[in-house]
Structure formats: structure tokens, C-alpha cells
């Protein structure tokens, strides 16, 4: 038996309506990661939220996704390091298909059952885009979700899990052309065959709700009816797609979280992608999912800039190969990423940057001090000539609550509302974002957002 102890959910501040992507597009919404976001930054936010109220020792971190940032590097290890989780843990990546979110959950459940693991953090994130011009056909969306799977009580209880393997690939390729998926084959030979096998083993009458996470879900309806399932009352609609879009590897776990809005026993989550993961669970305690309001991206051009698919050869935007150094990042992460500053033992001035003696009182003794991520604007400027996707960049000098000063870029300010415009004295919050524009070797550092 295992439980979901807590969860964290991160959705980007921007969204685009289907009819902006294509005149004939449906009016569903897609959440879009900003230019400085990726699955690492979104997962970091979700994981922080998930671990905020629990102080459990983490035994393992699993990272699921289908849009990797790194090659030859574990996203799970990198995230664990950002979260300052000790190194003596199991850190694994699940990056095969969009089913990888529930792959990670299945693995976590089995490890907890083995009693060798007590608390496992699972994070799943998605930042995939469809081909240019195909956006109206695919309900894509970006998000990250984090779950703490635990041996002790939580708000969801995982009763049992099972996996149904499908050996063949569901893709079609002709003489090195682009790989495409043939839905006819996938739906009939893949999904329906596996689904029937799975359904035959279920006592469908005892199940209060079915969550089927597959683009072929409609093809399951006749089989469900034949198995005595009441489609109206037992089959759960997808609440995620209308508000966020299809969020890839995070989607099944998001639907899992949405299911926790209603206390119920005997639910099943069926996640299909080149095989099925089945998770039986009970909701022990209601949780309400709340999303930020989000700002609309109003033009297709802005959308193209966000996905870096536009013409950037103007003075305001150039692809920049900014200097990036693993050695430097490793040396400095304790201060610059973990925000461990130095407080003067004499005058209590706090510095993020190390110096031999206090600039204020010349004292040489400092105490380590963890800096806050919230503060107030001391001064700022808008830079119109620093290359950026959305100029100007606003540079903000921030006095952090409890001491220390930091200077960072403002972000998520593309369509900032007048009432939230930054000024001296505004409350701001630090968020981890990507600094490097070319994306090959991202430098992660803090930017800030205006707190509403």
C-alpha cells in the first residue's frame, strides 16, 4: 500500500486560445511556457510546492517527461540537487513516452510496497509543441506536476497497480521520412487489444470512476458498455484538456490530482501509450485544484517568438551563445542557486556575494544565512537594447525580506496588467528561470515576478 502525501502543480502564466493558433481552431486553451521556462524550471516550482508543507526525508526522485533538456545527464539528479536533497538517493529518469508519468508512479508504488523506500518524489513535466501549422489539431499544453508517494497516510491511497505491455511500435516510416503515427493501427491493434485484456480482469461494477488517459479513449466506450460500465456515471471526463491542453507525460498524473476533488473509493486510472498502466486508487480527502488566471497570448507572432520559431535576426533579438561553465555553476551554486548568503556578525548586513570583510563595518566574521525569495523593489530600469525575445528586459534591484540584496531580471511581464506594473516598493518574488537563449546548455538563475 502507498499513499499520495502531497502534490504540487505548476502551470505557466501564459495561455493561448485555439482560435488564435488557427482561425478555425476550437476555443480551448493551451498553457504555454514562457521563453525562459523549461521542464526543469517548471518541475522545480511544482516540487517546491509539493515539499513545502512536508518535512519527510526523500529516498528517491523520479523525473518523467518526453521533452528532455539534457543529454547524458539525469534530470532527476539535477532537480534533486536544485531542491537540496542529499545525494544518497535513487534518482531515475523516465523519458520513453507520454506514459512515463504513470511509469514513475508504478515504480514508486512497487518500491514503497517493498518497504525499502518510504518517501518518493515524482515529478512529471511537458513542454512539447506540435509542428508549426498543426497546433489546431493537437490539444497541447505545458505544465509540471509533483507527487510525494509515501508509506504513511496521505489524501490518495494507491490500492493496486498493473501494467500491460505492448511490444510493437505504433509508428510508420517510409524511407527515412519523418516518423508518423498511424492511428488506425495504434487504435485497433494497440489500444483496443490491450484494453480488452485489461478489462477482462476488472470487476467493473465495483469501480466508481474510470479515468482513461488516451487519445483513443472513445474507442473504449463500446467495450466498457459491454462490460456493464455506466458511461454517464462511471467514466470521468478529461478536465485538464479544456483548461491546460494535453500535457504529455504530466497529463495522467494531473487527471489523477483532479480526481482528488471528489472523495471516492475504487477508482482506476488507465494510461495508454504503447501499453497500459493501470492504477487503482481511493480518494481519502478532498483537494481543490486551483490554477492561476493566466494572461492570453493574443497573436500568432508572439506565440512563434515564445517557441523560438520566429525570425530573430533583429537588433532586439539574437541567438546568443552565452558563456556557460559547469565548473563555475558547481562552485557557486551554494550561494547563487541555494541562496546561502553571509551575514556580518557585527552589523548584520547580509551579502549574497562573498567578500573578505564587511563593506559596511570591516568586520571579518560572517554567519551563513539562507536568504528569502521574497522582497521589495529598491530600484529598476527597463533595458531596450539588451537582446531579448520580448524587449525591453526589466532589471530589478531587490531588497529581500530578512536581509540581503539581489539584482535580477523581471519575467512573465509580457502582458503584465497596469495594476501589477512594477515600481519602486513593489513586492516581488524570485523564480528560477533559464538565462541562456540558445538553450543548448542552459544557465539557470533567478528572475523575479511581481506579486499580485
Amino acid at each position, binding site marked *: 500500500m502507498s499513499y499520495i502525501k502531497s502534490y504540487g502543480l505548476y502551470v505557466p502564466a501564459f495561455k493561448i486560445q485555439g482560435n488564435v493558433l488557427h482561425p478555425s481552431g476550437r476555443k480551448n486553451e493551451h498553457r504555454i511556457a514562457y521563453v525562459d521556462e523549461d521542464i526543469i524550471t517548471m518541475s522545480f516550482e511544482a516540487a517546491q510546492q509539493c515539499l513545502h508543507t512536508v518535512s519527510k526525508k526523500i529516498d528517491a526522485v523520479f523525473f518523467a517527461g518526453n521533452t528532455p533538456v539534457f543529454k547524458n545527464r539525469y534530470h532527476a539528479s539535477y532537480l534533486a540537487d536544485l531542491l537540496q536533497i542529499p545525494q544518497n538517493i535513487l534518482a531515475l529518469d523516465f523519458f520513453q513516452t507520454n506514459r512515463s508519468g504513470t511509469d514513475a508512479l508504478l515504480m514508486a508504488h512497487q518500491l514503497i510496497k517493498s518497504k525499502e523506500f518510504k518517501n518518493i518524489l515524482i515529478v512529471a513535466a511537458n513542454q512539447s509543441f506540435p509542428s508549426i501549422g498543426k497546433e489546431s489539431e493537437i490539444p497541447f499544453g505545458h505544465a509540471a506536476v509533483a507527487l510525494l508517494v509515501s508509506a504513511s497516510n496521505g489524501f490518495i491511497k494507491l490500492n493496486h497497480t498493473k501494467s500491460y505491455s505492448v511490444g510493437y511500435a505504433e509508428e510508420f516510416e517510409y524511407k527515412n521520412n519523418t516518423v508518423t503515427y498511424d492511428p488506425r493501427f495504434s487504435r485497433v491493434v494497440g489500444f483496443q487489444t490491450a484494453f480488452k485484456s485489461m478489462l477482462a480482469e476488472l470487476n467493473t461494477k465495483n469501480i466508481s470512476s474510470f479515468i482513461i488517459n488516451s487519445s483513443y479513449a472513445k474507442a473504449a466506450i463500446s467495450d466498457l458498455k459491454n462490460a456493464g460500465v455506466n458511461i454517464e456515471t462511471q467514466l470521468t471526463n478529461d478536465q485538464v484538456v479544456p483548461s491546460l491542453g494535453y500535457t504529455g507525460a504530466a497529463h495522467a498524473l494531473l487527471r489523477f490530482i483532479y480526481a482528488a476533488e471528489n472523495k471516492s473509493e475504487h477508482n482506476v486510472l488507465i494510461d495508454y501509450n504503447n501499453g497500459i498502466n493501470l492504477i487503482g486508487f481511493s480518494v481519502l480527502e478532498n483537494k481543490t485544484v486551483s490554477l492561476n488566471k493566466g494572461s492570453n497570448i493574443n497573436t500568432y507572432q508572439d506565440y512563434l517568438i515564445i517557441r523560438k520559431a520566429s525570425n530573430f535576426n533583429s537588433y532586439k533579438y539574437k541567438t546568443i551563445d552565452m558563456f556557460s561553465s559547469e565548473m563555475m555553476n558547481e562552485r557557486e551554486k551554494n550561494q547563487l542557486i541555494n541562496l546561502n548568503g553571509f551575514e556580518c556578525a557585527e552589523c548584520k548586513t547580509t551579502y549574497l556575494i562573498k567578500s573578505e570583510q564587511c563593506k559596511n563595518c570591516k568586520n571579518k566574521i560572517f554567519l551563513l544565512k539562507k536568504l528569502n525569495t521574497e522582497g521589495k523593489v529598491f530600484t529598476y530600469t527597463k533595458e531596450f537594447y539588451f537582446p531579448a525575445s520580448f524587449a525591453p*528586459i526589466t532589471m530589478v534591484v531587490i531588497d529581500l525580506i530578512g536581509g540581503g540584496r539581489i539584482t535580477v531580471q523581471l519575467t512573465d511581464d509580457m502582458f503584465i496588467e497596469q495594476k501589477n506594473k512594477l515600481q519602486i516598493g513593489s513586492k516581488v518574488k524570485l523564480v528560477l528561470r533559464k538565462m541562456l537563449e540558445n538553450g543548448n546548455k542552459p544557465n539557470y538563475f533567478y528572475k523575479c515576478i511581481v506579486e499580485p
Partner: protein
Amino acid sequence: MKDIAIIGIGVTKFGELFHQSYDDLVRDAAIQAISDAQISIDDIGAAWLSTAFPEIGVYKGRSGMDLCEPLSLYNIPVTRVSNYCASGGDAIRNAANALRAGECDVAMALGVEKLRDRQPQDSIVKMMVEYGHPYLQKGFTAAGTFAVYANRIMHEYGVTREDISSISVKNHFHGTLNHKAHHRIACSLEEVMTSPMVANPLTVMDSCPTTDGAACVIMVRAEDVDKLKHKPVYIKGIGFSISTGWDMPFFDPNHNFLSFEATRKAAQTAYKQAGITKPIEEIDLIEVHDCFSIVELLTYEDLGLCKPGEAKDLLRGNETKLGGSIPVNVSGGLLSCGHPVGATGIRMVHEVATHLRNNAGERQVKNAQTGMTHNIGGPGAIASVIILSNQI
């Protein structure tokens, strides 16, 4: 300390000098100064070359040898000085100290920068984008590092956008009187304020241009001046201070963004050496480092010309305009002359010396006897203050 005299000065035209190479600029400024001092090249016993950014110019000026080759000035010590935009002031300080120490009898300080062979986006902006720490302060251009001061002083002291931009109007007017200035165009307050924004509240016309140019001074100990030949200008005080690095102003919770500590420290040292106690009464003209208009405003207070918060009153009363009680940047300043980085500090000394010799033509400050230069570098981190007089 032994008094030092400037006996020769030279400056090239500042501007977009496609017809002149780095070496041509060195020769142009050096030969003017050598002729003015009535010496020969081989009389020079030691030299200091000020070039701040070889890598965003023409890759010249990495070492003292880039001064030697154009002049055939060999077999003497020549040192390259690099201290950001205050390199010129530091070159003069080093030359003065060598003369005082007796290392040489005739010293040359020459500043040169060749920036316009590249497009502006590939020089100063590129440097801020691609050099330095991969993420600390990324997002700033040079203008932005001073614009944060502008927004704070507007918030704190009731300084207005008009006050800040009136500095540009004043200095551009002065620039029309200087035939060696890069831009010789008078402008209105409206034109400054409505020109394209660079880093708010600073516009293009609140910002100095990147420029090619060179300036040179020849210095001796005052006791060696031949008054029959020379019109000497004496160095009465030199203050130089580094009060922060690149990062600390933006990470120090005590920094108020209203003042440059480096300027205050350098001025204190220079005033003490020169015996100046009331600068606004004892100094006749000042060349201030107006790389961006806000810097001139802040510097009035840091040099002690007025109390904190009162700089705007000097501007509103036209006190710092030619004809006012304390004219500032009658050359046109960096805003009109441009800013060939390594040359600027020496160009300022050339300008003040010209007035102290009563040779400044229609922009001459009447009865000028004592003048001052202020050269600042980095994000307000480094400052040089030099006090000059035509009286020993």
C-alpha cells in the same frame, strides 16, 4: 610631494574616424603633444598607454608596445593601463608618480580607443551580453547600470526627467563650440526626451556615443619647466579610488543608488592635496564624466558642489552652463565629444589645460585659474579626480 607640470597637450578629432587607424590616432595625438612641449620623441623617458577595450575595438592596445610601434619609441618602460572608463585618469596618475619617484624626467600619458570600426551593437552592448559572469547582472547594458540610479534619485529627491535631460541639452550646446567634438548639434529638451529609449529613463540623447579618438599629455616635474618655452599647467591634486567591483553595487544592501563612493573618495584625496575646502568657490571649471546625463547630476553632489538632493537646483539655475558660476563640460562632455574609452580621461585634462592657458576660443571660461577633471569607470566603481591650475 613634488609638483608636476603638464607641458604638452594633444587631442585628435573625436568621431567616426574611418580614415584613421589605431596607430594613426596614436601618432596624431602624440605628435601634437610632443610639438606643444617642444621636445623630441626620444626625450620621453617613460610612457603609459590607456586603452580599455582592445577586444571590442581593433584588438590593439593589449600592451604598452602598441604605443611604441607607431612612434618608434623603444627601449623605455611603457605600460598599458586598463581600468575601464577611468583608464585615462589612471594613466596620468601613474605618469605623475613615476616623475615624483624620479624614474624618468619626461613622461607621456596617451589614451586611445578605436571603437567605430564595429557597429555599436557589436561593441559595448555585445560586451555586456557575452562577457563576464554567465548570469549575474545579465540583462544590463552600460546605460542600465546608471539608469537604476536615475530612477532611485527621481524617487528620493524629486529630480525630474527634465532635470536629467537638461544636462544633455546643456552639453550639446557646449559641443557646438568645440570643433573636435563628435556631435556638434544643439538640441532641445523635447528632442532629448523623445529620442529612442535606451534604459528608462535614459534615452539615446541622454547617452554618449561610442567614438574613435586619442589624447595625450607630456608631463615633467614642475622644477624642470622652462617657462620661456612652455605654458605649464600644474597638477595640484590627484585622487583615484576603486570603491566597489562589478557586482557589489547590485548586491550591497547599504548602497543607496544616489551617489558614487569612488568619486567622493577620489575628490577628498585630490582636494586635500590641492588645499581646496570650498570647491564651488575655488574651482573655475570642471570636466565631468557624463557618459549618461544622470552621471553628471549625481557627480555634482559627490564632488561637493552642493548638498545631497540639491544638484537639480544647480541645473535649474543654469549655474553649470558656460557663463554660470561653475561651468561643467564646456567641451561638450562625453555626450557631445563621444567616449573613446581609454582617451576620455586624458581628453578632459587637455580641455581644462586649454582653458587654463586661455586658448579655448569661443568656449573659453573667463579668467580660469583652477580646473578639475572627473573620470569614472565600471558601474560607478572607479573614479579619478585631477585638480589643475595655471599657478604653481
